């Protein structure tokens, strides 16, 4: 009887959790795509796209507005972002932009994350064959 009550309580918590997880996943999950995938399967909402910042970075508004081209696997995409940039943002690093392509063909990012220079490989050593 006691065990039954606990199982019941566990089931209630599990059901609440299931509802929470499903609804929160549904409302906030986004596709994480490469540029090619984004072009092949345009999503209706925001998506996250990974790309490497190219040399054509132009900053205006004191650095709070930036335009650049992101490239990945031979595909490129113009990106427009307003907001403070991460410290390590510069041509050549990987960024993940979160937003959608506007009618102008430009990817308007509402968030931009730069991949951390990991504590496991300093920025300089990336791509430097040492062994």
């Amino acid at each position: 009887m006691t065990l039954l009550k606990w199982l019941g309580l566990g089931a209630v918590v599990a059901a609440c959790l299931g509802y929470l997880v499903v609804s929160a996943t549904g409302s906030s999950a986004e596709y994480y795509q490469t540029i090619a995938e984004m072009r092949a399967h345009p999503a209706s909402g925001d998506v996250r796209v990974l790309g490497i910042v190219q040399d054509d970075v132009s900053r205006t508004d004191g650095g709070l507005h930036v335009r650049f081209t992101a490239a990945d696997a031979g595909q490129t995409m113009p990106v427009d972002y307003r907001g403070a940039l991460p410290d390590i943002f510069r041509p050549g690093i990987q960024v993940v932009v979160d937003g959608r392509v506007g009618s102008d063909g430009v990817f308007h990012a509402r968030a931009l994350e730069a991949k951390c220079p990991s504590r496991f490989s300093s920025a300089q050593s990336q791509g430097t064959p040492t062994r």
Partner: protein
Amino acid sequence: MFLAELGSAFLLASFVLAVLSGVAGVVAGRGGDLTLARVARRAFYAAALGLVGASGTLLTALLSHDFVIAYVFEHSDRSLSLPLTAAAFYGGQEGSLLYWALLLALMGSVAVAAAAVSNPGTTAFANAVLAGIVGFFLLVMVFVASPFALLSGTPTDGLGLNPLLRDGGMLIHPPFQLAGYSAFGVPFAFAIAALLSGRDDAAWVAQTRRYALVAWGLQSAGLTLGMWWAYHVLGWGGYFGWDPVENAALMPWLATTAYIHSAQVQERRGTLRAWNFGLVIAAFLLSVLGTFVVRSGILPSVHTFAVSPLGTWFFGFLVASVAISGGALARRSGRLRSPQPVDASPSREGAFLLQNILLVALTAAVLWGTLLPLISGMTGRTLVVGAAYYERVSAPLLVAVLALLAVGPLLPWQRVRGGWLRLLRWPLAAAGVTLAGLVAAGVRQPGALVALPLVAAGLVTCLLEYGRVAVLARRLAGPLPLAAARVVARNRRRYGAYLAHVGILVVAAGLVGSHVWQQSRQVILLPGQSVTVGSHTLTYEGMAAQPAGDHSALVARLAMGDETLEPARLTYPSLGGQALTHVAIRSSPFEDVYVVLAGADGGAAAFTVYVNPLVTWIWVGGALLILGVLLGNLVRPEVERERVPAGLGATVPAR
């Protein structure tokens, strides 16, 4: 050259000794051969010594700038300060594996030595498991990722450390976080040992609880320091981003939080045995999973670690750990039936069990969000969730945990006799007063209106417990303060735990406050112009350029009242123009003014200004929590003799 060979020799010797210790431990555990058990222990101590030797060698190589060693070349240079050069020991992939193995070998040695006195049979198995884990790390270091690999020539200088990491935080956060991760191996080893030897008695609970608390304390320190570091250095105004790497550290902490509570139910009532095994094992498996995620780069994370072949190795280790734990649990499942289930009525153990269910649910939700890219990736299109998902899911669960924090400690064991509303009158009153006060002050955010009254109720509950000290002290002879100190000292574990509760509540208030009331503005200012955020007006006075060494700095001056804030932006030309923000923070007990210099454009400067309420409370609460763990457990507590139900056999043993 000599150092590299010496270090490799230490690692190889340790590896052989760990394998020997593991095999001897299993054989000794199965056959009950006490001499062989002693051999296994000594081999393990020797392997730990070998790791001390290897670590000393790596530190010497770093400090003597022996750049022929690839690890030294890649993670330090001549310009790095002495402490940061030493920190490179755990700052890179290979070195962090060495640091991990070293700590687990040392903590494991202490645990094995202490446990072998009372229970050599079970300890032989624990010894074998620990040797297995340490052996795995040594295997990786000997054959795949050696910290002592050599370059073909000797460079004149190393590559150094990224400026983002050249910070005091580098000296304090990683060592605690890695120590926490490695410490989860000790309670796991004793859990598997108890399952293998079939001796999961009260002594097992006492030992495992203690080791789990060590791991939990270290992980708490690692998480708090990590949030502190991110807040002070990264300049995004926050402290926890729900990134997979951060979740990986959080999940074993949540599972262990559940365990250190449910272990008390087993101590008191002898129940929840299988559940407790499950929690200890889950915490370890989650820590291994986290390491796999962090090291393999398999999940999209802002912390990318160098892509390495280690992912496969850790995946293999994870699979083996799951198989061994699952097998051990399945073998003993019949014996783990509890003599008496926990009553489903309001009681202390009921509160513990409900708290456990909530924490496990939260862990599951975090795990789902973290692994979603992997799970959805199998269908071809990768899905990711952000902070919004985690906040929506965790908020209701955390509110329920807060409510339990206020109610649970006041409930008696077994069953409430008489009206339980009467028991809860003080916390209920505190919650009511706080709610009324908040509403009267014009607060309308539901998050604050629900959570802050619960925090107040929880604090009153802790105060009531401390109030009992005075009541008990009055019965003792001698002056009251002295008697009170004696009461606290005698019940160290209990009052340490309540101090940790106070810490958690203070952290909760900080999380709620900074979440609900954070304000921020992005502005572009010319000298003389002002911006107002919250009740603070900042006036931009001007910018100064300061060239220095390998970087140039732009320092902005903003006047706020009679104070001057100086956010800066450093640029490193040698690193392709990488910038580094120096955030200017004015902390007060109730809010931080947090200013980031986002950029400069001619005479204008761009700023992001945040007002972050109650963030200081998070750091203070974290410190209280760790102080509580230390006070409660620094010295072996005396046995608590208090209303232990007879005949249940699960009292606190002396050792």
